[in-house]
């Protein structure tokens, strides 16, 4: 970077300084303070903070609900991220070569992104209702009517696969976004590259497999990071569909319960710190790589 004389860059720094102060205080200052609470023994609202050397971070694993919450978040993340990526890429692949009414398809696949989980949760709760066959509703009733009764299941209330069902509304909401990313990506691959492969006798599938997809690694990485961090933080969706039930307990809901229901700031802060670390491990290498890569171009 060129270092200009300070007279030249000082005004810029001044103009940016309100935001620097705000981010410094509200992001980094509060993260620091939250970590301080996590390291304290403040397990109710009146006691002093004190310092207990990270005991909370260890003790949390002995809480009956915590290991399950971590497992739920991981299952949800796996199903949601893979589901949204595959469905989004598949839809983009179908539309890549141009299709009649493409604009309308795009609008329909993307509109769920404009809807909050709180609103869509109202109807997903109905659709994924686990009531038994004789009074089946939602999807189970639809399966019954279509003579696909075997597909009926208990959706998110299933102890093993519940979180996979919980990922369905999230896939519904985000796969259009992935589709838009991939569609832009497909179209940015120069036609000459595809043509060259075709001349060499590659089938259309091989053109995608060996020419187009390798060009899209940065897009896949972006999508992975975006979906991954949304997924680790999932809160609205779970609150809207299941509330605080143990079968779909995840860390973001656990923070809420610790703070508001159990009045335990130290534990709430500890869970939030674990969440932050999980997101940071995912995002920081990507941010550094992105900003650096841009400079070297």
């Amino acid at each position: 970077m060129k270092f200009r004389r300070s007279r030249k860059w000082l005004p810029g720094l001044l103009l940016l300084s309100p935001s620097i102060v705000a981010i410094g205080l509200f992001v980094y200052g509060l993260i620091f303070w939250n970590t301080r609470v996590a390291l304290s023994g403040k397990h109710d609202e009146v006691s002093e903070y004190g310092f207990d050397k990270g005991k909370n971070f260890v003790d949390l694993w002995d809480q009956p609900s915590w290991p399950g919450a971590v497992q739920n978040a991981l299952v949800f993340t796996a199903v949601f991220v893979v589901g949204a990526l595959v469905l989004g890429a598949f839809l983009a692949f179908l539309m890549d070569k141009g299709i009649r009414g493409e604009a309308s398809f795009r609008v329909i696949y993307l509109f769920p992104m404009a809807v909050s989980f709180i609103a869509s949760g109202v109807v997903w709760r109905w659709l994924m209702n686990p009531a038994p066959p004789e009074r089946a509703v939602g999807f189970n009733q639809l399966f019954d009517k279509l003579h696909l009764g075997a597909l009926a299941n208990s959706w998110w209330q299933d102890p093993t696969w519940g979180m996979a069902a919980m990922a369905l509304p999230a896939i519904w909401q985000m796969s259009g976004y992935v589709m838009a990313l991939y569609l832009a990506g497909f179209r940015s691959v120069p036609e000459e590259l595809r043509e060259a492969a075709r001349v060499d006798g590659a089938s259309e599938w091989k053109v995608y497999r060996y020419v187009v997809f390798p060009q899209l690694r940065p897009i896949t990485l972006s999508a992975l990071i975006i979906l991954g961090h949304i997924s680790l933080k999932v809160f609205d969706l779970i609150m809207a569909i299941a509330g605080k039930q143990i079968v779909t307990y995840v860390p973001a809901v656990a923070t809420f319960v610790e703070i508001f229901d159990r009045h335990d700031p130290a534990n709430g802060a500890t869970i939030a710190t674990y969440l932050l670390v999980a997101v940071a491990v995912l995002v920081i290498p990507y941010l550094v790589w992105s900003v650096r890569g841009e400079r070297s171009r």
Partner: protein
Amino acid sequence: MTAPVPTAGRPVQAVKLAVLLAFVLLFLIPVYVLVVTSFKPLDEADPSSAWSLPRHWSTSGWSAAWDELRPGLENSVKIAVSGSLISAVLGSLNGYVLSKWRFPGSDVVFTLFLFGMFIPYQAVMIPLAGLLTDMELSGTIRGLILAHVVYGIPICTLIFRNYYVTVPDELIEAARVDGAGMLRTYWSIMLPVSGPAFAVTLIWQFTSMWNDFLFAVFLGAPDSWPVTVMLNNTAGSGAVAVQYNQQMASALLASLPTVLVYLLLGRFFMRGLMAGALKG
């Protein structure tokens, strides 16, 4: 992005179209159930008849939803409109500095800003609630706006910065040679070409503020609850029997503003999504 003219043969084209249409049906299932149930009279609105059309069309669910949600809708309008305006102005100034008036270490500052976009807000919520109380903003609409604006700085700065990078440096240099200062240059050169970036930022921020639940439920109070919290409260397991027609109408009512914005200004919305992906 212009769509290429379809080139593949007819059968392939037909299969693709059929698969895409099947997915359209799947994507619209929730909308169908919401709409038909919202127009049913109370005695028809029941999960067991979710798939059938109303025998008698009724708007009683909608008027009940409107009456109940109105305070929340008003709060949401206040929060999302003023919040997104402030966000856009801040983002524009920040993006200008980070693209055209870089200072030593500005890349580091930018990276530190961006990280703020990804943090789980739970990790600041406990001290944030305390800080807002100290500022006497706890539970107020102004407090919610402040939180949205501050945590919106990263994405807004990113959108404007990525947009301004495409404005040629020569224009800025020329203005500088003519003796224009930083703000003068912003006003006469950058601002006039910023329309698209403003549109993207306003839509993006409006949508995320309107749909926010996390900040509202942690930092709001009954007076300042936006529509999402009110909707979730009415949808919750109340002691009274749930009026499903009203509930579905409420969900639609709470989604209408963002869906309308999206349908009318979808092109800009798309660009906002691309900016969100950093390397769009």
